[in-house]
């Protein structure tokens, strides 16, 4: 009995000693090797999901959001029956089976089959349970308003890399660095909670544009394109006091959701990238300069009865003979002859000085990519007839944005504002990380000059003015028509068929809410800004004032319906 107890005790002791040695080996001697092995089995490195910040309009309406989709990949070695798989997949992802087969025959271990599948297609493929296929979460940029404001918002590529517009210009705010994260998983591959969010979001951008105004502008621009069979068109609507762009639209345009299929001419943001000769809208320069420099009075008369005036080696003509015109009438009736006479009175140095003061020949600094500066030659490079040509808006190249900014100077009492489309940028937590600062605004003419010229511009849309078609019922419009010949690229001379028609102004004239320019390129049937562009201005202004709850100025005591503004 005792002998058996000794044997049992000895066996137990040896057993414990063996366990002790094994534990010593596992926990001390082989600790490093085994813990590394365990880590490799238990820990998995995952990408932090990077999501671009959202884009909102000025009222917080979503213009650019992210969709959570899945992308399909394959490990060609692991696909058991490539032909069958290719055939089955082709019906769902809409690709030729041969194309899919080519991907299955790749030597690489990871091949994309289809990026950003819609949820229904992904679900169908998952149900098919094809070996060798896998899914990865992938965010897709989505622009819920489609074509609307596509030239401002821009677009991204397949890997969410910025291509155009705000997406490109403010990419450093919208994107986020991402990185890797270690997650613990069990033997079945199930991941355990990491306690941290594996999604990293970029900053959100609030634009100055208003979806409602943008819609009105684009709708009327489409109508104008159809009405005049034009090659292109642009509208810019701006707050004349702050430089906030309320709407900016171009035609042709594109749907940012399908940016890959858009053609170059559709992507062009003509409002800031295309130059044109402004024609009569440039008469703001000689008009304001003449008042500011006290060269003329409103009653100063100019003899335009001959319908032409010689300037150096060239002759400036009016479309119709106008007779003797006062300074005010020269602008109202858009007399080229009268404007050239004013320009000659001013002299080329002063005309150039004021053109530069109004920001022509320089970029406005708008926060969109691709802006051009336009050009105006320095006076030393002018030829004898240049003073006449520049006075009527020839021999200069401007962008629509430069012109509407110049007219905003009249609207706001002499201040050259900085146009911009981004109001503020907020972190995902709502903290403001960037806010537009308009400290660069500077006075370029006196308030008095601006007031006098505003009164003249009001007459343009009144009876006898060239821009009668822009008159809005109930509110006064101050503005100017422009009609300019385009350069024919074949002959390099002014074309007799291709014109640019424009109207630029602000409304209500005495308490301006919006400054706006309408530019129609190559209209068919009519060429004059007052006929082609002014009615577009009227339609947009009329609807915009209604949208902004701006009351009419002529209806006191005649109202039927009372609407309280909240």
């Amino acid at each position: 009995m005792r002998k058996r107890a000794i044997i049992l005790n000895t066996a137990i002791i040896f057993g414990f000693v063996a366990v002790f040695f094994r534990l010593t080996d596992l926990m001390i001697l082989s600790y490093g090797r085994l813990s590394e092995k365990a880590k490799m089995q238990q820990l998995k490195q995952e990408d932090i999901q990077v999501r671009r910040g959202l884009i909102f309009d000025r009222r917080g309406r979503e213009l650019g959001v992210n969709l959570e989709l899945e992308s399909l990949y394959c490990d060609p070695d692991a696909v058991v029956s490539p032909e069958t798989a290719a055939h089955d997949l082709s019906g769902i992802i809409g690709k030729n089976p041969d194309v899919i087969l080519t991907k299955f025959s790749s030597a690489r271990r990871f091949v994309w089959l289809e990026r950003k599948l819609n949820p229904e297609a992904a679900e169908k493929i998952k149900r098919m349970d094809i070996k060798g296929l896998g899914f990865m979460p992938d965010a897709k940029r989505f622009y819920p308003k489609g074509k609307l404001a596509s030239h401002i918002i821009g677009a991204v590529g397949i890997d969410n890399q910025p291509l155009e517009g705000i997406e490109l210009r403010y990419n450093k705010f919208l994107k986020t660095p991402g990185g890797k994260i270690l997650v613990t998983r069990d033997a079945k591959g199930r991941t355990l909670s990491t306690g941290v969010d594996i999604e990293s979001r970029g900053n959100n951008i609030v634009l100055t544009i208003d979806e409602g105004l943008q819609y009105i502008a684009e709708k009327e621009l489409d109508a104008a394109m159809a009405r005049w069979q034009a090659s292109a068109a642009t509208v810019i609507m701006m707050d004349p006091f702050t430089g906030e762009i309320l709407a900016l639209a171009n035609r042709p345009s594109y749907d940012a959701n399908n940016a890959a299929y858009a053609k170059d001419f559709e992507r062009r943001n003509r409002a800031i990238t295309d130059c044109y000769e402004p024609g009569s809208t440039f008469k703001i320069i000689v008009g304001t300069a003449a008042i500011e420099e006290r060269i003329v009075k409103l009653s100063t008369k100019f003899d335009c009865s001959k319908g032409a005036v010689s300037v150096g080696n060239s002759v400036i003509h009016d479309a119709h003979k106008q007779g003797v015109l006062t300074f005010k009438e020269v602008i109202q009736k858009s007399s080229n002859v009268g404007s050239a006479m004013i320009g000659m009175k001013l002299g080329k140095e002063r005309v150039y000085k004021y053109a530069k003061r109004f920001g022509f020949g320089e970029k406005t600094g708008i926060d969109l990519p691709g802006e051009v500066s336009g050009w105006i030659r320095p006076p030393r490079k002018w030829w004898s007839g240049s003073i006449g040509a520049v006075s009527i808006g020839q021999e200069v190249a401007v962008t629509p944005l430069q012109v509407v900014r110049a007219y905003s100077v009249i609207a706001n009492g002499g201040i050259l504002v900085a146009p911009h489309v981004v109001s503020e940028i907020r972190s995902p937590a709502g903290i403001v990380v960037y806010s537009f600062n308009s400290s660069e605004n500077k006075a370029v003419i006196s308030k008095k000059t601006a007031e006098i010229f505003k009164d003249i511009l009001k007459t343009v849309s009144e009876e006898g003015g060239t821009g009668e078609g822009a008159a809005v019922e109930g509110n006064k419009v101050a503005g100017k028509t422009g009609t300019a010949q385009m350069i024919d690229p074949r002959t390099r001379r002014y074309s007799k068929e291709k014109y640019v028609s424009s109207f630029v102004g602000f409304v209500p004239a005495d308490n301006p809410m919006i400054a706006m320019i309408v530019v129609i390129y190559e209209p068919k049937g009519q060429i004059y800004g007052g006929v082609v562009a002014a009615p577009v201005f009227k339609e947009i202004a009329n609807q915009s004032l209604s949208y902004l709850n701006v009351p009419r100025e002529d209806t006191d005591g005649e109202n039927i319906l009372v609407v309280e503004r909240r």
Partner: protein
Amino acid sequence: MTHANRHNGIFSFIFIPLSIAFLLFGVFSVVWLRAGVRTVEYAISTLENKRKEALNEKKMLMAEKASLLSVQNIKSTGDKKLGLIFPDRVKVVYVKKKGTPAPYRASLTGRRLTEP
């Protein structure tokens, strides 16, 4: 000596089993606690996945809502389905509560973002 032996007997009889019981209890507690933590981690992980799915769904719904609430869509519905027309400006007067009418300030101040 007899007295000392009695003490040893009590020690063996009470303290050793008690110590072993404590030891076993301690080991069991640690194992039980770790198992509990692991179970909670699984539960949290499942909930996190559900949350993620819900947030993804929310993003999709937000995009759909933004599309449906576009001015273009609302106008189209108003015009074609509901027979609404834009009011004649001459028949509308806006009673100003304060300030002059102006475009909304470009800001999200006071507005809750739709983003999670």
